[in-house]
């Protein structure tokens, strides 16, 4: 059996996650991906914002930086620019990345800086107990949307593509092999790479939305995540309530830190 403990910072256990939370599944998928790629942990840094999702780095035996709410990306940008040889992994939540940190998100993607971003999308602010995030679907209930959310939500993967990311994929914790595969691809990609991972939050989201049972939430993922090729052929009506999964963007283009180095070399030799 795979030895996760080798990668775990046991001193921080027990973890804070609720029973039925999907975040631990992502943690394990990330560990497997790192292990299979033979990545050097000394040369890797995990940066996170604030939220249940952002607790992930605290549980890993790796260089970690737990920052302020929404600001993981600018912190990570600083780390990467200071030492471009480091592999920088950013862990963020839907609120962290698209509410308070929304501005940083589009700018990091625009620069196409070499960061691997894992965005845990549980449709809600989990840590503060279930308020609407910019990714809460219309009609979903939250403590700040007692009669259902009115505000349209971000298609965050689409946003990242439009802003300039070089790799974008969407997956979920039920399809855990796909999840690991996409994390691995994102880690290998040079440039801004985003993996949006759908993960259940039975406590803050499920209970309010007729999915109090974690199993129901897993079944929801099983039934509603649709491969992107199929999704693209569906009518708007058929797409209702479904979420596309797969690699949504994978292109090679100029990466920020590499371009920066080139510029320095050029200016110095001129």
């Amino acid at each position, binding site marked *: 059996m795979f030895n996760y403990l080798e990668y775990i910072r046991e001193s921080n256990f027990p973890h804070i996650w609720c029973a039925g939370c999907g975040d631990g599944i992502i943690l394990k998928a990330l560990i497997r991906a790192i292990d299979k790629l033979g990545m050097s942990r000394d040369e890797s840094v995990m940066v996170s914002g604030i939220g249940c999702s952002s607790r992930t780095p605290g549980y890993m035996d790796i260089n970690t930086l*737990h920052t302020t709410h929404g600001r993981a990306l600018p912190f990570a940008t600083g780390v990467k620019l200071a030492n471009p040889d480091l592999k920088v992994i950013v862990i963020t939540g839907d609120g962290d990345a*698209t509410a308070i940190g929304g501005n940083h998100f589009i700018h990091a993607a625009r620069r196409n800086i070499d960061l691997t971003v894992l965005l845990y999308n549980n449709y809600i602010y989990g840590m503060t107990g279930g*308020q609407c995030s910019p990714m809460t679907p219309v009609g979903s209930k939250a*403590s700040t949307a*007692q009669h259902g959310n009115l505000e349209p939500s971000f298609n965050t993967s689409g946003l990242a593509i439009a802003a300039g990311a070089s790799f974008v994929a969407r997956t979920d914790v039920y399809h855990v092999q796909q999840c690991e595969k996409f994390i691995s691809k994102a880690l290998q990609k040079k440039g801004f790479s985003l993996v949006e991972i759908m993960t259940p939050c039975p406590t803050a989201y499920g209970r309010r939305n007729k999915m109090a049972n974690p199993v129901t939430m897993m079944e929801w993922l099983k039934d509603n995540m649709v491969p992107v090729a199929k999704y693209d052929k569906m009518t708007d009506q058929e797409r209702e309530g479904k979420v596309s999964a797969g690699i949504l963007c994978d292109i090679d283009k100029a990466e920020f830190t590499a371009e920066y180095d080139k510029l320095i070399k050029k200016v110095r030799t001129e």
Partner: protein
Amino acid sequence: MKKVIMGNHAVSYGVRASEAKVISAYPITPQTHVVELLSEMCANGEIDAKFIKVESEHSAMAACVGASAAGVRTFTATSSQGLLLMHEMLHWAVGARLPIVLANINRAVGPPWSIWTDQNDSLSQRDVGWLQLYVESNQETQDTIPQAFKIAEELQMPVMVVMDAFFLSHTYEIVDLIEAEKVREFLPPYQPEIKMDVNDPHSFGNLAGPDMYMELRYMIQEAMEKGIDVIKRVDKEFEKVFGRGYGVVEAYRCDDAETILVTSGTVASTTRAVIDEMRDEGISIGALKIRVFRPFPFEDVFEILSKAKKVAVIDRNISFGGHGIFYQEIKSALYGRTGIPILGYIAGLGGRDITPSVIREIADKALSDKNPERYINWIGVKR
């Protein structure tokens, strides 16, 4: 009607009774219950207000600024990192002279991360120009909200109501709920002199050259200096309607006290119990609670403390490289007018308990301390 409620909900009921029209907030522990209940009240139509879900505290205050400039009563609540993120907008609210009310739940600032109480978040906003009122019980919390609106609207200045995380925010106490109908006798509907109005347009946030800027700052200070009298009068008016008043400071057994302990927030209640115990032992000691921190009630403080022989200030905060922040204020209130030794004690940072025995330790130290130059004494630090 009396109800057992948490401190956070005491804020929400205070806002309901004050009939705020726009509430804009971002969740953060330990404040979240305040705005969750308000959001529920808006959704149920219990309060005729709009709740704006924003993407950060910076936007929350920006939305309050906009709504207040449009001429309605406006409220937000936050804590710690959230208050710090608002900083730029806090300045804006003051410069634009908007009577916004904000409840801040005192929480320690990270890193290292802490969700527990201390006062460095609000006290680091000391110089932005918000009035600051520190409350001690859930009843006082609820009652202070309509008071804050009245003070704010009269002075055209924003007011922050500040309370301890968990010790107050999450603690349940009996509160005599006030209702909007009765509050209206005390706090009439908000009628701004200047607002954004299509029939009478004004511009907000314009450029002021060196010929004008200073005058506008002078007027802010002028409003602050009027503040203490306004706060006292508003408190009296509140008392007339509801039978409860709180003052700007509260002296406890100070009249003949040789030593006076100065505190704020929930520490004040614990301190009173220690004072009683020490009085029973025949020790001449009293306590002064500071309720209003900005504007600072220099004269009231002087009047009470100048009769003592020694003053000890308990600060749940620190100005690094300086002293405890209340300590500094007390010192400047007494400066040049008395030679009383003033001792400073730093305790309870990051939510460490300030129990009766901690206060007793401070009191005993203060009584036996012969060195009036001891500005900072750290209590209970493991070195």
